[in-house]
């Protein structure tokens, strides 16, 4: 008996082993601490079972009892039986619908990402001077600022409900007359 075999320990206790197999099993149990422990454990279980027989003994033999159960099943064959459905806790529900929960979370994250992208990239549109803009954004298709060092930006102000062309870099003048003079001398 080279391996720890609980079946052989059971066989030894039940008196099923004979001859060389009985001798080998006894020898192994006497030298192997693991199998000796298993032997003592099973021996203890057998003693306990022997000392405490089942309190309620069946009045019928198992075969007769099963025939009665079968007959009852056949008698109630068409009868509908209401089976109580267990009430699930939220944690149980989550466990049962893991795939749905993961899908919903992924969809939510994707929708949030798309929304964030739309807000970030469609809130304003910067148009570099002399560069054509795309159709539909801010209602401005082309935008040029002929004066050097000026930049024009087109955007929709949804809050105010207007489209704005924001020109920066235009010469500042202290009053209207100065402005007229300054721009009159600018040739674009």
């Amino acid at each position, binding site marked *: 008996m080279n391996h720890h075999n609980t079946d052989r320990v059971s066989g030894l206790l039940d008196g099923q082993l004979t001859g060389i197999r009985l001798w080998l099993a006894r020898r192994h149990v006497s030298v192997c601490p693991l199998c000796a422990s298993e032997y003592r454990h099973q021996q203890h279980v057998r003693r306990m079972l022997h000392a405490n027989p089942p309190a309620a003994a069946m009045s019928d033999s198992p075969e007769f009892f099963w025939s009665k159960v079968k007959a009852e099943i056949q008698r109630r064959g068409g009868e509908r039986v209401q089976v109580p459905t267990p009430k699930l806790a939220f944690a149980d529900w989550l466990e049962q619908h893991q795939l749905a929960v993961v899908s919903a979370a992924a969809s939510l994250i994707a929708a949030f990402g798309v929304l964030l992208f739309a807000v970030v990239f469609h809130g304003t549109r910067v148009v570099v001077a002399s560069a054509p803009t795309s159709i539909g954004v801010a209602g401005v*298709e082309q935008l040029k600022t002929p004066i050097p060092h000026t930049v024009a930006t087109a955007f929709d102000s949804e809050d105010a409900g*207007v*489209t*704005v062309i924001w020109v920066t870099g235009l010469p500042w*003048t202290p009053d209207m007359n100065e402005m007229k003079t300054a721009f009159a001398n600018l040739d*674009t």
Partner: protein
Amino acid sequence: MRWLVAILLVVALSAGVQAASIEARLIRASNGDEQPDEQLTKLEPKLKKVFGYQHYQQLGIQKAPLKDKEGLRLNLGEGIVVLITPKADEKKGRVMDFEMYSGRAALVKSTVRVRRDREMLIKGPGVGNTLLVVSFAVVE
């Protein structure tokens, strides 16, 4: 009687078609304590939201009917002139070339699609503590 109704219908339709016009204003934005300009009652809240100044004064206004591919020259005063050339009337709005001049200098040259329910505002040059703004809209 039928002829009269037909003529009236044709007149009404043609009047409706020709009713679209462009309205451009030159506005000065400042932080003074002046009384609100009554001519800008409708536009002032929008101007405040975009430019943030407290007071807006209309320096000039010009209105002219839009004719297909016919250029319009609107002199808004203070040397600011706007040239508008309608290009197409589309479902989404009127496409037009827009140019804004101060004297000989072209400040902005643009092709815009103006929606009927939406003003366009152009931030112009700063003058002292004020800012010049041009607004224009299609008025049906």
